[in-house]
């Protein structure tokens, strides 16, 4: 599914990712844990194609194809989905207009027929009901005036509708209260499937109580320092990241 090989990424003169290698198999939920400022969000942006990051070495393969040269919308159509740490407010764009544009753009680029509005509405309403996204939220401009929790739910709603191959959850737990965390996690868990993988980025164990990972990877200093099973998350929660930071620690 997703293979990241010796990835080096710079922003300006500063190298952020320094030879990161990671493989996520079909159906796997991989958790990346690490302290703040270690490049976790950079990794999520580089996979999804945001501008402003220079890949100096390495590659990211989705189903064997290097996606680093592709525009973000092409990656999305191939199945990459980023649930943002801070979903963006877009005051002038109606939520339904956006959802329709996104779903149909992906369908078009895969050579599928566009969904007619009634069918689209039906799918949106069903998914929204499960995630506690109210009709009122759907009527508002995208993410405008939404609370942190509402924005995260809206992102997971999009993921549910777009059915990606590879979902990246960037600090999805940040800013969520316990109820919102449960709803969002249930949304993600219901999407788990043999042909769909997830990369769950977090620095707390808490999220992993709800979304149980298959593998856990410790990221520090721009690379994966250690990989293991779910038990690794518990160990990190107890002992912290100190031992992985080496001389960079204060």
């Amino acid at each position, binding site marked *: 599914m997703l293979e990241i090989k010796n990835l080096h990424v710079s922003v300006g003169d500063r190298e952020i990712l320094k030879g990161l290698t990671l493989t996520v198999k079909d159906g796997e939920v991989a958790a990346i844990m690490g302290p703040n400022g270690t490049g976790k969000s950079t990794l999520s942006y580089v996979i999804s194609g*945001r501008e402003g990051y220079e890949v100096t070495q390495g590659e990211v393969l989705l189903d064997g194809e290097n996606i680093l040269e592709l525009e973000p919308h092409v990656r999305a159509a191939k199945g990459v989905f980023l649930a943002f740490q801070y979903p*963006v407010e*877009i*005051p*002038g*764009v109606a939520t339904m207009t*956006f959802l329709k*544009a996104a779903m149909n*753009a*992906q369908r078009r680029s895969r050579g599928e027929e566009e969904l007619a509005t009634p069918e689209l509405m039906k799918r949106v309403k069903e998914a929204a009901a499960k995630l506690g996204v109210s009709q009122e939220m759907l009527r508002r401009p995208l993410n405008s005036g939404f609370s942190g929790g509402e924005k995260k739910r809206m992102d997971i709603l999009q993921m549910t509708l777009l059915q990606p191959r590879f979902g990246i959850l960037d600090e999805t737990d940040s800013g969520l209260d316990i109820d919102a965390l449960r709803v969002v996690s249930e949304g993600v868990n219901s999407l788990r499937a043999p042909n769909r993988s997830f990369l769950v980025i977090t620095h707390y164990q808490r999220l992993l109580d709800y979304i149980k990972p298959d593998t856990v990877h410790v990221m520090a200093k721009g690379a994966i320092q250690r990989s293991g099973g779910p038990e690794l998350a518990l160990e990190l929660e107890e002992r912290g990241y100190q031992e992985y930071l080496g001389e960079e620690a204060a």
Partner: protein
Amino acid sequence: MIKLATEADAAFSSFFEEMKGQGATGLRQAAWEAFAAKGLPNRRVEAWHYTDLKAALGKPAPIASAQAGMREIARAHDSVRLVTLDGVFRPDLSDLALLPEGVKVQSLREALAQGAPGVMALVASADVQAEDAMVAMNAALMQDGVVLRIAAGVTLGQKIELATYVSSQDVQSSFTRAVVVLGKDAKATIVETAGALTAAPAQDNQALILRLAAGAALDLVTHVSGQSDKLVRVMSLLAHVDEGASLSSYALVEGAGLLRRQIFARLNGEHSKVALNGATLARGRQHADTTLVVDHAFPNGQSRERFRNIIDEQGTGVFQGKIVVRPHAQKTDGVMQSKAILLSDQATMNNKPELEIFADDVQCGHGATCGRLDKDQLFYLMARGIPRYEAESLLIEGFANEAFQGLEDETLRGFLLGRISSWLAARSK
């Protein structure tokens, strides 16, 4: 040595000789003197600093005359339409028979010929023409237009459209003036259409005078468009909003040649409200200027201005907004906001908000921004699979639509949004 008048001065003088016998002689004379004292605005006149009208009107075209023959003019709205074509009100093209009860319409030409003092008081624009030469010129040279009166207490179920077009293949100047009066507690929606049915570079000077009596409420929806890149159009909106009355204006300006839309709005009684909203689209070498003065003359007034400018290619946008709060206009609440998006490196936007506050217990603020499309928003949309061009269009459309959020008439809002979409669809990739 005697200083020779410019070609333009000479031409306007001869226009005045032509028009001064056509009713309202005193009014025209006073307006002509106000104009002559100032002359055509050049860039040294502060209010015209960004729009060089003197250069644009260097060669005034002859005054328009009624075009022979009937013309079918396509309808954009389900409205009772009153048409002024090439400077002349056209009953034959207007829906006079469909006017709702409580509405009276007279041509301006007829009103000026009759010269009834009450009507002349409405037509006059003495307060503004002292300030603005183009309003003065309009009053001195006005050819025709519409006087529309809506009786007190009437709530119009139908929209009335004041449509003003230029259509001549010859290059002509037109000077039209419309007056709309809402009696006490009257409520109405008026559509103001300023269009061009010709690609000839007309010179068009229009004024719309609004008088809202106490408690009246007007939604004014303006659509400006043109065909020629050499069209020169100045539109002036002069509004008095009396006690407890409310004016909401929504304007879509599609650039064509040089366009100046200026608004002089006076909150003319306590608890009056003015909301001015607009979106401007300009590309090519188009120049689109919105300049407004909101004058809080009484306490407890509220004003809101929300303008969006989208400038592409080598286009130029101008927004100048001034909120004036007079010494006794306490408890004034005013917020003015102008935002611009530049879609190309060669696009220009001049944004100038101003406050002139002489009262001490007021809340007034303004904000002006100018920039590119937001990269974070663009990435968010693209990360969901929306291609760049389409994502940009969504953002631009959304940005422009913010100006029309408050418009309750869904068909009119749909019409404006449709025009924005069409403009975007013609944007180069």
